[in-house]
């Protein structure tokens, strides 16, 4: 056993802060936001409000985690929102009352989401088309399927399902946070820590170098899209618990908001750096802002403007690249 010297520890700390700078900013922003929220709404720290706040962000968190996987490969997934809708409409159409039945439907919906992601990935990789335009097209297709299932809002969601996901475990911790922990530990971490996850980061960092090193670039990219579809479907299942009904347009906002959450969280659109840690903070920031603005008594008409400004400033800070580069050519393609 080697003992860490204080110098080692200091170096590790310095490195940690330097590398996770952007994630740190996202969490600082989140904490600041929560601080303001607490100041305005003293009852923030009651179980009810904490649960409600966690619930408010959870669907976006899950969908944004999926988007993170794709962005890490230097791609983008515009079909995240429609997959959320598809998952929601499918669930609300198929849900029976019984527990085993519901579990069966949940599994089916997740498979459908993964399949949608698989299709995205295969077209991007083997069709050799740009992700933005492929997922634009598949977004339309998946939203069409969602509409087919639920032309009008409705459907059936068992009451106990909604209660289960939106309340608390042991009447203490919001179920949504437990679910998030579960996803992080049993779904994301195994992906991130596997050779495939490493390949995803490698491909995003420098696709050519990854190929030259002998990595299977195609497999990594397809895996990222499958993960995105799966998590988007999971987000839709959670959303179903919240709304207790199916609505084909419910997922629409998730596409662009998930991109915002990813960028806010410090993941680079050029791929290779970042991760879900920052994305989670980013998603919560986006969701909580409206509540904060509401409690701050800001004119509801000004809220969208504030939300937009915060988004714009945060995104710009995260993505601006000019300040560190001394050779102008490096800022160009």
């Amino acid at each position, binding site marked *: 056993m080697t003992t860490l010297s204080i110098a080692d520890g200091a170096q590790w700390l310095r490195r940690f802060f330097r590398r996770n700078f952007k994630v740190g900013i996202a969490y600082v922003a989140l904490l600041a936001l929560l601080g303001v929220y607490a100041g305005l709404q003293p009852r923030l720290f009651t179980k009810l409000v904490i649960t409600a706040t966690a619930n408010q962000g959870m669907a976006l968190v899950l969908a944004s985690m999926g988007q993170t996987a794709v962005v890490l490969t230097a791609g983008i997934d515009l079909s995240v929102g429609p997959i959320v809708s598809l998952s929601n409409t499918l669930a609300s159409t198929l849900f029976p009352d019984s527990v085993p039945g519901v579990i069966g439907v949940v599994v089916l919906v997740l498979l459908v989401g993964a399949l949608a992601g698989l299709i995205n990935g295969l077209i991007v990789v083997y069709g050799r088309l740009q992700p933005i335009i492929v997922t634009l097209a598949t977004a339309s297709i998946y939203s069409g399927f969602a509409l087919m299932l639920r032309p009008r809002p409705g459907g059936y969601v068992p009451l106990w399902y909604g209660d289960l996901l939106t309340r608390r475990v042991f009447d203490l911790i919001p179920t949504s946070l437990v679910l998030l922990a579960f996803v992080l530990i049993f779904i994301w971490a195994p992906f991130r820590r596997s*050779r495939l996850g490493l390949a995803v*980061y490698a491909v995003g960092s420098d696709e050519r170098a990854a190929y030259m090193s002998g990595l299977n670039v195609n497999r990594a990219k397809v895996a990222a899209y499958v993960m995105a579809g799966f998590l988007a479907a999971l987000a839709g299942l959670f959303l179903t618990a919240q709304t207790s009904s199916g609505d084909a347009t419910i997922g629409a906002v998730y596409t662009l908001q998930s991109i915002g959450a990813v960028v806010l969280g410090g993941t680079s659109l050029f791929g290779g750096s970042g991760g879900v840690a920052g994305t989670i903070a980013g998603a919560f920031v986006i969701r909580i802002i409206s509540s904060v603005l509401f409690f701050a008594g800001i004119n509801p008409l000004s809220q969208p403007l504030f939300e937009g400004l915060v988004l714009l400033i945060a995104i710009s800070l995260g993505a601006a690249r000019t300040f560190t580069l001394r050779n102008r050519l490096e800022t160009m393609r």
Partner: protein
Amino acid sequence: MQPLVEARDITKRYDGVVALDQASFRCQPGSIHALVGENGAGKSTLVKILSGVVIPDAGTINVRGRPVVIDSPIVATRLGIGAVFQELSLMPDLTVAENIFITNPPRTHLGLVDRKALYRRAKQFLAELGFQDVDPDALIGELPLAQRQLVEIAKALSRDPQVLILDEGTSALTMQEVHTVFEIMERLRAQNRSVIFISHRMDEVEEIADTITIFRDGRNVASFPAGTVGREEMVQMMIGRKLEQVFPPKRALPAHEVPLLVIEDLSWGDTLRNISFRLGEGEILGLGGLEGQGQRELLLALFGVLRNVRGRIYVNGEEKQITSPAAAASAGIRLALIPEDRKTEGLILPMPVKDNITLATLHQYARFGLMMHHQERAAVDRVIEQLRIKVPSPSVTVRSLSGGNQQKVVIAKWLLTQAQIYLLYDLTRGIDVGTKHEIYQLMRALADEGAGILFFSTDLSELVGLCDRVLVLYEGRISAELSGEALSEENLVATALGMKANGREESPVRRMA
């Protein structure tokens, strides 16, 4: 003894330029084999073919006596051939440890990447190699070039190669680090493996290699055990008696009060240090030295591409701030830059020849912003004829042209600007001999008309044959100025390696650790 790797009659052409001309190469097991030769001699191409990065047009390759087809880097790795090139194959956002073992990281019993074991194995491996200063947990993007080269070497070695190829993969290393790499090479030799390494540094070659092969003009000129041929003779074989490179006669420079360009104390980070020189009207001033000593950055700095450049620039006697290429090309300054990579920096390949030619002078053919087709066409036709660019029509895409003609298009673009100072980066690299001659005549003609030319070339004969003076750059500084009698290929080689002119050994080439 059966050679470990044998290549026979390898031919490779790029756009009509012959990179390898029925070249052969044989490497025995248990040897450290140096490949030397000038730029463009074909060494890099051969080695890229052996490592699966480039596919030859013709020829056979045998590994341990069996014929093989190496059509990708993965195949080469499986055959036991590992390569380290100058363009590194490292992922900047991943750590050193992750990069080294990227295709085969240690795993936990769950099948996930075992981070701790990865770190430990990397640390141990790097220590075994003698690279203990490299931090396995550092991101590649955070490392200086020297350490990245070490990581690249470690990565190649981690795949247990029978043949390790080093294509100038040690350019940024200190003496200490180079010796560490030499020790690795010796260990490989002791295990009956081989190392093929390409180097310009003759003292290193002499120190470590046991076999030396000289390439020239795409062929294997000579192969012999180290120590049996003297250095002068080797340099002779490298330079050789090529086709008569006839350079246009130089002229005596007119005496002028005010030189075209005066540079004082130009500095940029660590790459350019206090560069000062003058360029007069009608002068062809050469830039020499090994590649990567700041020549590219000097030209970019003069052209307004770099930020935070310190120092002063005077054009026609007036101090100027050059903040962008548009400014550099503008009426008061009239600079032109023919950049390093014509395919990515000099030309827009999918666009037609005529669009490329007029890209820098669009407004000369526009009235109220609208392009005047006839005027444009007239200018394009004129310059195509002047430079004798071979195109079926100016509307074909420039991608379809040969290398020489492509370079002529780049030159044409800048000729139309009627610049007074031309900055040229390795203008004739990868171009056939005929076109080279035409370009030499052109350069002379431009100088005779009063333009000033700053010309970096890796071709020594060009520097000697064309330039009135040559400034040799070494580590961002001007280490020597050669002119008149002193301007010879031997002196250029010597001063590029850090030695003084006349072959006397001076300070060592590399930095101390």
